[in-house]
C-alpha cells in the first residue's frame, strides 16, 4: 500500500482538483447570485474545445486560454439571457446547454479538422500544465475577498438571498445576475482549458466526463463558500487520484476491476450530496427567476 500514497499522489490530486475548483468557483458566483448553474459541464467543454483549437491555430496557449474564457462567458450568456431575461427554468436551460455542448465541438472539429471527435495534438511546448493550478489557487482568496469585502460581493449575495430587498435598496438585480453568470462561464472556461491544454494536449469528445457535476457537488458540499468549496474539490481530486493509482493494483491476489475503481469519485459525489444537501443551506433565492411586478 505504501507505494500508492506518496508525493506523486498528492500532486496528482492537486492536478485533478484544479478543473473542479475552477468550475466550482464559477458556480459559486452564479449560485450566490441566485442562478442555478448546472451548465458547468457544458461550459467546461466549451472552454476545453476552444482552448485546444485556438492554441493549435495560434500557436500560443495564452491566446487559447483567453479564448476559452471568452467562449465560456459567451455560452454562459445564453444561459443568462434564458434564465434572467426570459425567466426560463434554470435547470432546463443548463441541461440544454450541456446537451448542446456534447455535440457542438464534434461538429466544429469535423468542419475545421476533418475529425469528428478530437482536435489535433497541441505541441508539448504550447501546453500550460501549471498556470491554471496557480490561477485556481489565487482565485480562492480573491473570491473570498470580492464576496465579503466589496460592494459587488455584498450586492451579489443580497441578490441571491433576497432579490426584492436588493431591488428595494436600489440594486439592479438583473445586472448583478448577468455579471455573476458571465463570471461563472469565464471561470468554468479556464477549467475546461486546463483539461485540454494543461492535463492533456488535445480536446477529446466529452472529455470533462461529469466534472462539471462533481464541481457542483463540491460547491454544495462546500456550502457555497470559497474556502470550504476548495477543500471539497481537493477531497474529490484526491479520491480521483487514488482511483487512478488503484488501477492495476492487486488486492489479495486478485486485480481490482477498473470499472469498480473508476466509480469511486462518482459514488463519493452521490454520498456527499445525499448526506449534505439537507444540512447545507442554499442561497434562498436560488433557482427563482426575479419578477418585479407580480
Amino acid at each position: 500500500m505504501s507505494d500508492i500514497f506518496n508525493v506523486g499522489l498528492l500532486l496528482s490530486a492537486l492536478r485533478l482538483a484544479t478543473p473542479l475548483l475552477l468550475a466550482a468557483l464559477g458556480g459559486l458566483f452564479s449560485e450566490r447570485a441566485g442562478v442555478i448553474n448546472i451548465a458547468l459541464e457544458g461550459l467546461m467543454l466549451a472552454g476545453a474545445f476552444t482552448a485546444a483549437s485556438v492554441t493549435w491555430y495560434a500557436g500560443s496557449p495564452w491566446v487559447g486560454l483567453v479564448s476559452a474564457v471568452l467562449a465560456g462567458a459567451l455560452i454562459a450568456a445564453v444561459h443568462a439571457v434564458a434564465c434572467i431575461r426570459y425567466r426560463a427554468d434554470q435547470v432546463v436551460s443548463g441541461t440544454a446547454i450541456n446537451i448542446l455542448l456534447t455535440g457542438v465541438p464534434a461538429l466544429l472539429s469535423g468542419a475545421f479538422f476533418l475529425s469528428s471527435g478530437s482536435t489535433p495534438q497541441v505541441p508539448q511546448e504550447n501546453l500550460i500544465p501549471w498556470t491554471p493550478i496557480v490561477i485556481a489557487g489565487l482565485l480562492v482568496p480573491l473570491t473570498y475577498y470580492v464576496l465579503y469585502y466589496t460592494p459587488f460581493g455584498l450586492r451579489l449575495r443580497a441578490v441571491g438571498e433576497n432579490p426584492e430587498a436588493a431591488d428595494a435598496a436600489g440594486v439592479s438585480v438583473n445586472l448583478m445576475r448577468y455579471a455573476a453568470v458571465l463570471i461563472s462561464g469565464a471561470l468554468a472556461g479556464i477549467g475546461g482549458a486546463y483539461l485540454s491544454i494543461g492535463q492533456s494536449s488535445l480536446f477529446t469528445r466529452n472529455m470533462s466526463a461529469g466534472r462539471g457535476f462533481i464541481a457542483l457537488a463540491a460547491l454544495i458540499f462546500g456550502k457555497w463558500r470559497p474556502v470550504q468549496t476548495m477543500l471539497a474539490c481537493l477531497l474529490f481530486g484526491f479520491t480521483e487520484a487514488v482511483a487512478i493509482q488503484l488501477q492495476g493494483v492487486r488486492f489479495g491476489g486478485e486485480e481490482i476491476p477498473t470499472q469498480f475503481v473508476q466509480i469511486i469519485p462518482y459514488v463519493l459525489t452521490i454520498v456527499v450530496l445525499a448526506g449534505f444537501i439537507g444540512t447545507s443551506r442554499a442561497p434562498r433565492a436560488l433557482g427563482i427567476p426575479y419578477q418585479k411586478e407580480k
Partner: protein
Amino acid sequence: MLELRAITKRFGEVLANDHIDIRVEPGTIHAIVGENGAGKSTAMRIAYGFYTADSGEIVVDGEPRQIQTPHDAIRLGIGMVHQHFMLVDTMTVAENIVLGAEPGSAAAIDLTKALGEIRALSNEFRLSVDPNAVIHDLSVGQQQRVELLKALYRRARLLILDEPTAVLTPQEVEEFFAILRRMREQGKTVIIITHKLSEVLAISDDVTVMRDGRVVGRVKTKETNAAELARMMVGRDVLLRVEKPDARPGETVLSVQRLSVTAGGGERGLRDVSFQVRAGEIVGVAGVEGNGQTELIEALAGLVPAARVSGEIRFRERDVTRTSARERYELGIAHVPEDRHRRGLLLDFDLSENSILGLHYRRPAVSAGPLLDLSGIRARALEMIQDFDVRPANPDLPARALSGGNQQKLIIGREFGLGPKLLLISQPTRGVDIGAIEFIHRKLVELRDEGCAILLVSAELEEVTSLADRLLVIYHGRLVGEVDPRQATQEEIGLLMTGGGKANAE
C-alpha cells in the same frame, strides 16, 4: 413634495389604480387609508419605482420626474419601508443599511465609515439597534428600525411607510409615532399607509382615502372622525365595534393541562400552559406575535410532532394529546390557520376543491367507491360560497384569484361547515378588509351562540378584546395573565404582553 397625477396601473384584468391624484405637502405626515385591494400600496410602489405606471405623472418638488426603479426614487430622496420588510436576513444590520449605497470604493467597503454614519443616525432619531447584529436575530420592531435607518442613510426626505404598525405592540406603536413626529420636526415628509383609523387620527395631518383603485376623498385629519373615514373607505356605514350578547358558557370542551412544546424550527416553544375553554364562549389569546401562539394552536390541532409535545390536552373528557390531526378534525376540532397560504388553501386549486380539503376522503365528498362526487362537491361549494359571501361567487376560480378577505371567508365557511365543537382560529381578519371583518366577527359570535367553544388568537388587540369573553395573555411561551376584556384597558394588556405588569404567572 410629492404629487401623483392621474396615475393609472392595470394588472391584467384588474384596474389597481384608476387616475389617482395624491398630493403630499412637505413637512407633513400624510395618511393613505383604504381597504385591502383599494390600491394604496400599488400607488406607493409606483412612487418608489417598484412598479411602473401605465399612464400618469409623478411630480417631485414641483418637477415632473421619471421614476423607473427604486434607484431613481432613492436619488430623488424618496425612501420606502415595505409592509413585508425588505431585509436580507442572513446579513448584518450594517450590511443591510449600506447595501446598494456602500461607502468606500469599488474595491472595498469602508465599514468604519458606515458604522459611524449609522451610529450618528440612530442617535439623531433615537433608533437604537446594534449594527453588527444579524437580521434574523432581531425582533420585528428592531427590524423596522433597520428599515427606517436604511431610508435615512440614503438621505430620504420623504418616507413612505406601508402598514408600519401591523407588527408592533401598543407601546411600540407609541414609540414609533414619537419617531415619526421627530422626523417631521426635522423637516422630513412621511406618508403612512394604514387601515387602522385610530392611528390615522393619532398621527397624521392629512388623509387621502382610497376605494376600489380610486381616490374617493381627501380631508384634514383635524376636521374628520373615524366614522366618516370608515364610511368613505367602505362606501356605506360600518359597525366599528362588535355587538354581542353576553356568553352563556356550558360544559368544558377543551381542557389543557401543563402543555409544553419544545422550541424548534425557529419557534420559541410553549411552557406549562393550562387553561379551559367551555362551550359557548370565546377565549381570546393576546400577545405579540412569536410568543408561542403558533405553537399553542398547532399543538391543539395536532400539527406539532408528538415528540415535541408534553402535558395533556383533553377534548370533551377524552385525552387527545397523542391523536393525529385527522382524528381530531373528525372529532370536531376545526382549525382556521394563521397563515392561510401555508396551511389553509391550495392556491392553484379551485374553490370547490379547496372547499373539501380535509374532508376529501370521506362522504359526502367521496360517493361511489374511490371516486369523488364532483358535481355534488361543486354544488355544495357554491352553496357555501353564497352563505359566506365569497366573491366572486364562482367555484371554478383558483383560490389565488380571490382577495385575502374572500380567501379567509372560504376557509371559515369550510371549517364552520364541519359543525365543530371546538374552533381554533388564528388571526381571523389578517389582511381582510373592513366589510369582511365585520362579517367574520358576526359569524364567530353566531357560532359561539350555537354552543361552539372558540379559542381565538389575534395580534390585533382591538379584535381580541372586543370578541373574547375571557382573555388570556401570552408572553415568551407562557400564559402570564387572564383579564376580563370588558374591564381591562389596552395599556394594562399591553404591559402584560411585554412581560411587565402586576399579574405574573402564579
